[in-house]
């Protein structure tokens, strides 16, 4: 979609800068999550360390987006689609920052797991991470392209992720009872699964904001009500 430029060029520059920072932040969060999970699956501590290091830059970008968003509101008093874009950027950044936090959590748990012999149950995380990652990527894409169908599809996939996490939780709890030697390992896998389930929640929040940005419709809590 081609959006005509504002008469005020500095307004366009400020909006573009805000959007670029948000996309940069999302890209870093995605990379951090990817590194953390590869660190888990490939038992690679270096990748985990990189994932943890990414978090600092993500945090700084969150603060930058808040600062730029407030300044944009103050200087240009945006309305209509511009206002929605600024408000959404301010609302999206904490969700992306929390995805970065979850990547750090996963990386830290992966490093702990890597100190011990490999657990075959790590494979239970593979479909969960694929589902969570695809939700996060699609949510960001839905926001960038203002694609409400894609955003709705992200929201609709959250329940499946919840179910996958619950299923993994049940199976890993059983394994904890059967094999108390690996208690900590199974516990770390439960927390990794939960972290991915939280990534799905943040992706859902982002997708809801993508719909608001595109068509000014507030779909929050409708998804839960409809699926209940």
């Amino acid at each position: 979609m081609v959006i005509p430029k504002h008469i005020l060029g500095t307004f366009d520059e400020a909006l573009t800068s805000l959007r670029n920072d948000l996309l940069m932040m999302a890209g870093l969060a995605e990379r951090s999550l990817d590194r953390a999970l590869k660190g888990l699956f490939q038992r690679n501590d270096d990748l985990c360390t990189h994932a943890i290091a990414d978090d600092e830059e993500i945090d700084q970008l969150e603060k930058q987006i808040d600062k730029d968003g407030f300044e944009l509101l103050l200087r240009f008093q945006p309305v209509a689609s511009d206002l929605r874009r600024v408000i959404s950027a301010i609302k999206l950044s904490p969700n992306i920052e929390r995805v970065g936090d979850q990547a750090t959590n996963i990386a830290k748990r992966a490093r702990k797991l890597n100190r011990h012999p490999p657990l075959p149950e790590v494979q239970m995380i593979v479909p969960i991470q694929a589902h969570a990652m695809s939700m996060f990527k699609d949510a960001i894409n839905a926001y960038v392209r203002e694609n409400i169908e894609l955003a709705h599809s992200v929201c609709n996939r959250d329940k499946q992720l919840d179910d996958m996490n619950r299923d993994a939780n049940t199976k890993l709890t059983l394994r904890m009872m059967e094999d108390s030697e690996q208690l900590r390992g199974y516990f770390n896998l439960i927390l990794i699964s939960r972290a991915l389930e939280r990534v799905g929640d943040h992706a859902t929040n982002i997708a809801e904001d993508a719909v608001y940005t595109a068509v000014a419709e507030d779909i929050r809590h409708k998804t839960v009500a409809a699926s209940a």
Partner: protein
Amino acid sequence: MMIAAPMPQPEVVEPRDRAAAVLLDTNGEPLPLAMEAKNVSMWYGSKRAIDDVSLDMAAKAVTAIIGPSGCGKSTFIRALNRMHELVPRARIEGSVFLHGQNLYASGMDPAVVRRRVGMVFQKSNPFPTMSIGENTIVGLRLNGVSDRKFLNERLEQSLRMAALWDEVKDDLHKSGTSLSGGQQQRLCIARALAVEPEVLLMDEPCSALDPIATAKIEELIHGLKTQYTIVIVTHNMQQAGRVSDFTAFFYMGRLIEVGSTTKIFTNPNEKQTEDYITGRFG
């Protein structure tokens, strides 16, 4: 006490016979209308300034009219109290109803229309040879009111409604032009209110005022809408957002879109509206 000669009483036409009311409250109920412009077109000589505009204005609410310079905003509100008739070669087609009465019906006195539909202009215009007190009640005097007690009561009431009484009560004898710009504008509002209009038209009333004087006028508008129907023309988007319940966007003499102010400023239906309010008009 009657303040003027009895007004001609044209037939009241029920809204359902003209067109369905389109303005709804937050519960989706139709709002009572104070004014309705129906298929209004206007010309200055051969130049068409307004092109087939139909606009409903809800009673005891503020309707803001926005649009770029030359789009017909001021021309349109002048049609609402027949002020355009003072401009040579200006002519109008269509109808304007005030509480069901066609203001352009034969026999309707333009002076009476302008008393029922008051107007405040961009530049404050107190009569320079009159005191603050005389300025306030000049409309009543011109309508033949001479009862001193009544005039004094209305003087204080109007200045209080215009949030000016406390600032001028000890200086009522001073010239109206001795006041600051913001006070002069509130004096003009008091002058308009003194004749108890049903509708108050405001044509960019704050464009020459500083932010403090502007805030006082906006606060005044907020208070007045409990009693009056207000139609305000403004170039200031933020002002329209702050003071109005409904916003109408005009472009090149046409009404492009009207809706609740929240709707217009968050998600307008028309791309032209969006482009204008977001500053994308090239």
